[in-house]
C-alpha cells in the first residue's frame, strides 16, 4: 500500500463507523420501545469520528488546499458525490448533536441515517474503478456496509441502556456472521476469475493480514458475543483493529489491471 492510501484507510473506516453508529442510534431511539440511551455522547462520538476522518482524508491529496474543489464534478465523478454526501452527513450529525434533548428528533435521526447510507454508497462506487477488476463491482459497497454495521453496532453498545443490549447484541452477531461468510467466500470467488482477479484472490489467501483480520476482527468477537450474550467492552476495540487491517488489505492486496500488460488476461 502506498503511503497515500493510509489516510484513505482512516477516513473510510471512521466515516463508516459514524454512519453505522447514527443508523443504529436512530433505530434504537425511535423504532424500539424503552429508554433511548446516551444519545448526546453517541452523536458527539459520530461527529468526532467524521471530523477525524475528514481531516485524515486531506492527507491523501497531493494538494490538500484544493480539497474544496473536489465537489466540482458531481455530474460523473463518484468522488465528488462522496465528498458532498459526506459533507451533508457531517452537517446533519452536528445538527442532531446540537439539538439533542435526551433524544435526537426522529426526522433528523432518520434523515441523517439515510444520507449517511447514501454517502456510503457513493464511497463504494468511488472505490470500485475499472483499474481493479476484483473490485470493479458491488463488493466495495458491500464491504463498506459491513464495516458500518459491525463497527456501528460495536460502538453503539457503549451508549445503549441494559434493556436494549439484546437488540444491539443481535445486530452485531448477525453482522459478524454475514461479514465472516462474505470475507471468506469473496477471495475464493476471485480465484476463479481472470489472471488479475485470480492474483488478487491469491494475494488475499496468502496474506497474514487477511487471516489476522478474519480471526481477530470477526471470529474472536463473534464467539465472545455469542457466548456472553452481550457485547463486552473490549470487543468493539478488537473489531475496530480488525476493520483497519481489512481496509489496509483492501487497498494493498488488490492487483491493478495494468500489472499484467503483455500477459494473458
Amino acid at each position, binding site marked *: 500500500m502506498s503511503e497515500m492510501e493510509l489516510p484513505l484507510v482512516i477516513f473510510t473506516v471512521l466515516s463508516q463507523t459514524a454512519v453505522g453508529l447514527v443508523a443504529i442510534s436512530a433505530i434504537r431511539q425511535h423504532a424500539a420501545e424503552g429508554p433511548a440511551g446516551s444519545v448526546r455522547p453517541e452523536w458527539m462520538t459520530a461527529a468526532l469520528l467524521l471530523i477525524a476522518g475528514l481531516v485524515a482524508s486531506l492527507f491523501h491529496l*497531493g494538494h490538500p488546499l484544493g480539497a474544496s474543489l473536489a465537489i466540482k*464534478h458531481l455530474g460523473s465523478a463518484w468522488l465528488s458525490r462522496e465528498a458532498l454526501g459526506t459533507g451533508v452527513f457531517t452537517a446533519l450529525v452536528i445538527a442532531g448533536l446540537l439539538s439533542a434533548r435526551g433524544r435526537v428528533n426522529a426526522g433528523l435521526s432518520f434523515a441523517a441515517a439515510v444520507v449517511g447510507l447514501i454517502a456510503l454508497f457513493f464511497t463504494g462506487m468511488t472505490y470500485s*474503478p475499472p*483499474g481493479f*477488476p476484483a473490485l470493479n463491482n458491488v463488493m466495495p459497497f458491500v464491504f463498506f456496509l459491513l464495516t458500518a454495521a459491525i463497527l456501528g453496532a460495536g460502538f453503539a453498545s457503549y451508549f445503549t441502556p441494559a434493556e436494549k443490549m439484546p437488540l444491539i447484541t443481535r445486530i452485531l452477531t448477525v453482522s459478524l456472521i454475514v461479514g465472516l461468510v462474505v470475507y471468506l467466500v469473496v477471495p475464493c470467488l476471485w480465484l476463479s476469475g481472470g489472471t488479475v482477479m485470480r492474483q488478487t484472490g491469491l494475494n488475499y489467501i496468502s496474506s497474514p493480514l487477511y487471516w489476522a483480520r478474519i480471526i481477530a476482527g470477526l471470529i474472536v468477537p463473534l464467539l465472545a458475543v455469542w457466548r456472553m450474550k452481550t457485547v463486552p467492552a473490549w470487543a468493539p476495540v478488537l473489531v475496530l483493529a480488525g476493520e483497519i487491517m481489512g481496509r489496509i488489505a483492501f487497498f494493498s492486496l488488490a492487483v491493478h489491471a495494468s500489472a499484467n*500488460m503483455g500477459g*494473458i488476461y
Partner: protein
Amino acid sequence: MACKNQYHQENGVIWRDVYELKEEIYPHRERAFYSLACNHCENPTCLNVCPVVAYYKRDADGVVVHEQDKCIGCGNCIRSCPYGAPRYNPVLKRAEKCSFCWQRLDDGRKPACVLGCPTDALQIVDLAEFDEANAVQYPAGFPRYPALNPSVSFRLPAMPKMIRRKL
C-alpha cells in the same frame, strides 16, 4: 526517449512504456512488444472520475488532455484507468499522462513518439476509416474494456520465419 526528450518527465514517471509479450502469447522471447501510452478512450474513465475536472476531451480529434495545474493529486484517475496511463509525479504531487502532444498536433506536426519511432511501429490513423484485416482493438496481452473503448488498433505480430539448414 522521444517522449522524455520532449517533456523531461521526472525519473520513473513514464508516459509511454514498452511491454514485452509474454511467452504464453508469443513464443519467441524478446521479439514482440507493445508500446503503450494513454489510449485517448472514447469514454475515458480518467475524465469521468476526476473530481476537479482536470481532464477534457477535444471535440475535433478526441484527444484526452490532462490539465495538470487543475489536478489536486487525489490519485483517482491513476486507480481508475485500467491501462495504467496516468502516473503520479511525486515532485509536483499531481497526476500526469500523455496528452498526445496536442500542441504539436495543432501545429501540424506529429506526436514526438510517432516522429521518433525508427521502425514506424506507431502511426496516427483515423479509426473511422482504418480497416485493416490484420488489425484488432484488443490483442492478447492488452486489457479489454469495451465500456472505455480505447482509441487504438494493433497490427498483430507475425511469427518469425524459421530457417533451418538441411543436413
